[in-house]
């Protein structure tokens, strides 16, 4: 079976596809969230070192992962838009940024609330925390740059350069706990070691992570639909669509 991918790189055909996919991702998100929170609060055992406080991990770690993944996906879409001048890729990059920034805020916030009881400080200027804060500034910089330039094609190009240059920060965040002696604990899950936590904790963490992924996909699809409507508002198909909605 061959799929004509180019067909879906045009906003006109991507718009209805995104609309059809979105409810499925929303549904999966709700189900996984319910399972994840149930496991996280009622099944996963108390940690022998951190007591109940470790349960913050079930939102902190997925949010922190998402903040990094979304940045990489955003930079990839922005780069694609820069290289091939495809409008939809630039719109995807623009649609990903607010959700990425939101997860960065969640990671920093939950991190502060986890740091206070464990380290005795809301915030320390350690490599992990500082580089994550820089990630937030990169997201905000990308969004304000897009908002400041009126011509969408120039805005996309300028944003793409910022996104690609800023991508170097993501490996710095990820490896910061290895490269420097940080107060932040090491990776919760790594590829070269056996997991250091109980199986139920690990399963819960993975379920929550998948839920955050599907949440991101649902929200970003909806936002890219708004972007498409905004940029194509003078085209016949968008006007026909809104007339249809009103009738």
């Amino acid at each position, binding site marked *: 079976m061959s799929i004509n991918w180019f067909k879906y790189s045009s906003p006109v055909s991507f718009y209805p596809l995104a609309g059809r996919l979105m409810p499925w991702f929303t549904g999966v998100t709700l189900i996984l969230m319910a399972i994840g929170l149930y496991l996280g609060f009622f099944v996963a055992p108390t940690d022998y070192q951190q007591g109940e406080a470790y349960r913050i991990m079930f939102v902190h770690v997925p949010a922190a992962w998402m903040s990094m993944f979304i940045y990489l996906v955003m930079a990839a879409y922005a780069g694609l838009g820069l290289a091939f001048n495809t409008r939809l890729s630039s719109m995807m990059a623009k649609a990903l940024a607010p959700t990425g920034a939101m997860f960065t805020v969640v990671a920093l916030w*939950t991190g502060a609330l986890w740091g206070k009881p464990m380290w005795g400080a809301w915030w320390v200027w350690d490599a992990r925390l500082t580089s994550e804060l820089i990630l937030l500034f990169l997201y905000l910089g990308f969004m304000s740059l897009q908002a400041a330039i009126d011509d969408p094609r120039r805005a996309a190009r300028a944003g793409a350069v910022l996104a690609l240059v800023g991508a170097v920060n993501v490996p710095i965040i990820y490896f910061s706990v290895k490269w420097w002696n940080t107060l932040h604990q090491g990776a919760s899950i790594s590829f070269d070691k056996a997991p250091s936590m109980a199986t139920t904790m690990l399963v819960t963490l993975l379920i929550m992570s998948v839920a955050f992924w599907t949440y991101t996909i649902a929200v970003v699809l*909806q936002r890219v639909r708004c972007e498409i409507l905004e940029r194509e508002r003078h085209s016949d198909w968008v*006007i026909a669509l809104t007339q249809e909605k009103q009738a």
Partner: protein
Amino acid sequence: MQDFFAMGGYGFYVWGSMIVTAVLMLLEPLLLRRRRQQLLRRIGRSGDRARMRSQRRQQQMDNSTKVSHETQT
């Protein structure tokens, strides 16, 4: 039940994390929904205006052809 909300003395930190995360992850889709509705309404209105404009232009053209017919006869 009381124990559950106390979270072994970490209640403030655990629930403070969960509630803020939940608020943000509910707020984002809600704001997006509002943006979409406003957008559809705005585009719908400008679509109406465009249609009226083209109807008016059509009428003017009809009138002017009628006038030219009258002057001819």
